[in-house]
């Protein structure tokens, strides 16, 4: 079986990616599609800033602005930030724990295709009668009154992609519980694996409430249920609760893996063991735990009463404690380290003050009386962009540079990387710092234009210039990616030279079975220990070279996801009442999904074995072609 190093044609490569169950290839799929949606969301952000560049602008109509603003938020959170983080989780986490794949390779693929079809469905709304326009939070009081199919695209698209995310979350938790290499105890797991673990647990508990809330909305619109119709006894606050019971943990689902990426970067480029590893682990768990107890701080102005507001205000302030623990541990990791200012490292260093600024404004909003003043103003917009861009997006950009060699076997250009960083970093602060003051001056969020001569004109113009800087930074990054791919200069196992964890001990990119022999982990920062002891192989092996069992590729995930995609169109157009073809489309779509699930359940799929002889041959080839 020489499929290990075969050169493939274009069609065969596409087919390979559509059927793959290999976590490293699925990571690349997540990276490409998440990156695409990041560009779409960025374009929408540019439209928003062009519209708000000057007072009384008519670049976008009020209705279009609502759509662009809604889709910017929804796309960035669900279709860009989460998939990009899932890309790194897929690419790196199994390697860090010394596993050959995730626990459920088939479900891994299914999760990706559900996400992609959900995302495409949501974005097709632009071409099929208008996008959702009730904000990314889609509050029922607005959404129920929204005309057209925008809200249906939102509800059905997020349901499909939400199932994909839930599947990914379960998969990662099982992988980390069951698939760790011998010696990889919980307290030896790299911090990125730990944050993946906690974020995945949050996914498991946070996504079902969102799904339930969305189903209520679909039922209200499709079957005439009355969950949110106040005249029929309904209650729109139920949506707000369900949405934020999901929505607040979602913030931590995004930011914890970002913390994990930065933790790796600080240790690698300070050439030091993470300071306070144990404290960092427990702070991660604590943040995950608190994350579920603070949702109502998004609803202080709803009128839940002083007791509820006080409880949620206190819980919210408490989260600052474990977050502060993390910040100090990172600072003390850098302290006294032998620092190299590579692109990932400057992102990491820039992250600390940016994220702290977002955290501080967060604690300000936790003060319920003050929140009455800040609510629905640009102060809130500034705050959450400091957290999400200053935390998550910087981590994604840093992670792209850090893990690019491990994913693709080539190194992104450092010089261009630093240009990207400076444009993006300066642009980010230029855009959002000033929005704090716009908010304090009373500029409301989510309004398509403003009246001039209130002292807002210059600040909005500055904010728009900042957005342009960020766009330039992203364009430089795209140039960097293209140049690097064209040059195709291959790198070795440990291209940064100071890798500490197992993923740097194997080739870049790794062979599809990851580890020819399962490693034996002898402590935290396993690869670093071996390096310090002069072990040229970089690993101690837990087993002799032998046959490896691998899962088969499958096309079924695409079919299952496609079925739901088709069914969604049926459900959506069935609402119109004058389209007799809609119901059959719905039924056919669901039939495709359920029949392919049945086929998957009933058809035996036992995988295949790579023999020892093939492994030896593969290793020899690796040594002769110099990729080692």
């Amino acid at each position, binding site marked *: 079986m020489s499929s290990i190093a075969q050169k493939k044609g274009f069609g065969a490569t596409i087919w390979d990616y559509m059927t793959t169950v290999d976590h490293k290839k699925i990571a690349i799929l997540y990276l490409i599609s998440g990156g695409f949606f990041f560009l779409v969301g960025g374009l929408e952000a540019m439209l928003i800033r062009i519209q708000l560049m000057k007072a009384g602008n008519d670049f976008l109509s009020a209705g279009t602005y609502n759509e662009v603003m809604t889709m910017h938020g929804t796309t960035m959170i669900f279709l860009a930030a989460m998939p990009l983080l899932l890309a790194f989780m897929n690419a790196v986490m199994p390697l860090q724990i010394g596993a050959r794949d995730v626990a459920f390779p088939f479900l891994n693929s299914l999760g990706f295709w559900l996400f992609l079809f959900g995302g495409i469905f949501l974005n097709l709304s632009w071409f099929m009668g208008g996008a959702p326009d009730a904000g990314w939070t889609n509050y029922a009081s607005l959404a129920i009154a929204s005309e057209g199919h925008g809200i249906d695209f939102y509800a059905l698209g997020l349901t499909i992609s939400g199932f994909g995310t839930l599947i990914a979350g379960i998969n990662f938790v099982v992988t980390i519980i069951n698939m760790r290499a011998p010696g990889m105890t919980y307290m030896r797991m790299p911090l990125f694996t730990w944050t993946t673990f906690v974020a995945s647990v949050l996914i498991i508990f946070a996504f079902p409430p969102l799904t339930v809330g969305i189903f209520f909305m679909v039922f209200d619109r499709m079957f005439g249920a009355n969950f949110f119709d106040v005249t029929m006894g309904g209650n729109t606050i139920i949506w707000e609760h369900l949405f934020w019971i999901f929505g607040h943990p979602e913030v931590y689902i995004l930011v914890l893996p970002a913390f994990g990426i930065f933790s790796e970067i600080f240790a690698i480029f300070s050439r030091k063991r993470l300071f306070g590893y144990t404290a960092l682990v427990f702070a991660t768990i604590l943040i995950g735990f608190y994350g579920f107890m603070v949702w109502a701080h998004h609803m202080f102005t709803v009128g839940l009463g002083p007791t509820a507001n006080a409880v949620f205000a206190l819980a919210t302030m408490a989260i600052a404690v474990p977050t502060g623990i993390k910040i100090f541990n990172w600072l003390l990791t850098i302290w006294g380290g032998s620092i190299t200012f590579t692109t990932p490292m400057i992102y990491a260093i820039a992250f600390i003050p940016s994220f702290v600024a977002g955290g501080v404004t967060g604690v300000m909003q936790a003060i319920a009386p003050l929140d009455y003043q800040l609510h629905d103003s640009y102060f809130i917009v500034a705050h959450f962009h400091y957290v999400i861009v200053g935390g998550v997006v910087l981590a994604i950009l840093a992670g792209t540079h850090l893990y690019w060699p491990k994913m693709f076997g080539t190194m992104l250009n450092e010089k261009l990387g630093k240009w990207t960083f400076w444009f993006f970093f300066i642009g980010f602060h230029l855009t959002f710092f000033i929005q704090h003051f716009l908010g304090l001056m009373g500029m409301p969020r989510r309004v398509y234009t403003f009246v001039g001569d209130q002292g807002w004109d210059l600040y909005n113009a500055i904010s728009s210039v900042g957005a342009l800087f960020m766009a330039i930074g992203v364009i430089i990054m795209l140039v960097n990616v293209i140049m690097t791919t064209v040059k195709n200069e291959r790198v070795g196992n440990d291209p940064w030279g100071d890798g500490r964890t197992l993923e740097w001990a194997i080739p870049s990119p790794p062979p599809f079975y990851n580890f020819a022999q399962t490693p034996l982990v002898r402590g935290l920062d396993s690869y670093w220990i071996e390096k310090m002891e002069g072990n040229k192989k970089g690993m101690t092996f837990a087993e002799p070279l032998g046959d490896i069992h691998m899962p088969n590729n499958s096309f079924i995930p695409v079919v299952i996801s496609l079925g739901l995609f088709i069914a969604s169109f049926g459900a959506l157009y069935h609402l119109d009442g004058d389209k007799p073809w809609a119901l059959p489309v719905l039924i056919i779509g669901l039939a495709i999904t359920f029949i392919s699930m049945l086929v998957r359940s009933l058809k*035996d799929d036992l995988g295949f074995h790579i023999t020892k002889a093939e492994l030896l041959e593969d290793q020899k080839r690796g040594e002769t072609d110099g990729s080692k």
Partner: protein
Amino acid sequence: MDLNKQYTPRTWPDHPETATMEGKNKFVGFWLLLAAETVTFASLFATYLALKDKGPSGMELSASQLFELPLVFAMTMILLTSSLTSVYAMYHMKNHNFKAMQAWLGITVLLGATFLGLEIYEFNHYVHLGFGYTHSAFSAAFYTLVGTHGAHVLFGLCWFIALMLRNAKRGLNTYNAPKFFLVSLYWHFIDVVWVFIFTVVYLMGVIG
């Protein structure tokens, strides 16, 4: 894994459901799925409690007038019994007694189908009283909570039947043992949810 490997009660592992790596992964993964399902039902219960007896002004129907315990009690006993029979099936699975397992699974499916039939009858009865899905926020919350449970019962029945038919001719091995184990786990979960529905919806509804 060799599908043709023949087991006897003597060579059959103590825990066939977790004898393989796939089995172990499925076992942990399924518990996590049940955690997600628990949150799903918790959201539905919370919504039901918030919208109980809520409707357009002047709405006559309320939970205490609508629900009657005898039928629901019978349904509860039937579903609880089906949980017991699925335990017997798993007992025989662990002893590598395929025929007895299939027989008990068959009884489980019959009881589950009876439960589902009674639930459809019950819903139909309410609809004839004018308590349709679009009647009020209360009716929407009630039918969505209890109906979601009913849909889970239907899915469980289909799953049981598919596995029984698929493996009817080849008996038990460590490849299909985890599958049988998981569906019975799922069945227990459905049963537990029903206990809560019986308490929160029906008992608390009749009390008023």
